């Protein structure tokens, strides 16, 4: 949370030296933060590669793939793209609409099951 305070400071600090050329500039966080996130992205990617390398199968495989994917995506959006420090109006406007894709996924799962069944029935199994 120190970063949030630092940012707030950055925004308000602009009031005093109003004459300087550079006006308040957002998103100043310590470099260490980015290096830590970078490191975690490496670890998570190595884990998802390990899922394939050790040929895990079934729900364990899919669960791990999805979990690692969501963690990586979250880190990138929240820290690298600075979404964690934006106002909620922007965050919700950007993050909520893609959830509609999940509805689309549900529809297409039903559709492809139907297509597969008709293929099996019309052309024989396999």
């Amino acid at each position, binding site marked *: 949370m120190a970063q949030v305070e630092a940012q707030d400071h950055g925004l308000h600090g602009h009031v005093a030296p109003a004459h300087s050329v550079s006006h308040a500039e957002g998103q100043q966080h310590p470099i260490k933060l980015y290096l830590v996130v970078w490191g975690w992205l490496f670890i998570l990617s190595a884990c998802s590669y390990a899922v394939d390398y050790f040929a895990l199968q079934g729900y364990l495989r899919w669960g791990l793939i999805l979990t690692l994917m969501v963690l990586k995506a979250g880190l990138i*959006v929240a820290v690298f793209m600075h979404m964690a420090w934006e106002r909620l109006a922007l965050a919700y406007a950007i993050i909520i609409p893609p959830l509609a894709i999940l509805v689309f996924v549900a529809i297409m799962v039903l559709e492809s099951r139907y297509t597969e069944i008709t293929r099996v029935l019309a052309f024989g199994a396999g």
Partner: protein
Amino acid sequence: MAETTLGHTDHTAPRPQGLRGIVADVSSDQRAFKNVSWGKAMMWIFLLSDTFVFGCFLLSYMTARMSTTVPWPNPSEVFALHLFGRDIPLILIAIMTFVLISSSGTMAMAVNFGYRRDRKKTAILMLLTAALGATFVGMQAFEWTKLITEGVRPWENPWGAAQFGSSFFMITGFHGTHVTIGVIFLLIIARKVWRGDYDTGARGFFTSRRGQYESVEIMGLYWHFVDLVWVFIFAFFYLW
């Protein structure tokens, strides 16, 4: 007059937080995204639309893979490389992932140094990002060449379901195009940083608006998005 819309924040009164803040921001006149410049807001909205494009590609891939009665080729074997006397599964894709993540890391730091007005470090980190991006595209070209010589076509392949080729070329091709465009723009922005356009507020050749270091962050948003899309492609196409 145009300049007023570029400003970051009006510091008049503290704005409400949380859900109440969303309602207040969205229902206020003029601007819903209060402390975000139009450039950044438009980049986010573009990225949102791009999310739907890639979402639809991955969806069509899912539909093709779920509805086919022919077995799907095993990506772990298809993308294996013969190294050190044995087949290592998916190794090229893993290296590409690490290259792209590294480029995201250098980009994030470039944005940071940009806001600190460290011209040299910003430009060098951006050039490094561009170099890593170009490496990624090069490795993708290698991957395409390998698969094409092995007989993968959009309409057939030696291992199974024919839709494998079309999904592969469509998804990775579109992503590679994004990376390529990103590299080009990284070079353009890096040149501007190097020249000091953002220190002097020089006007851009296209929009004639005064340059500022926020351009580096907006460039960064695009670049991180390219990395983000790869996270999903890696999970769904290569690992699944």
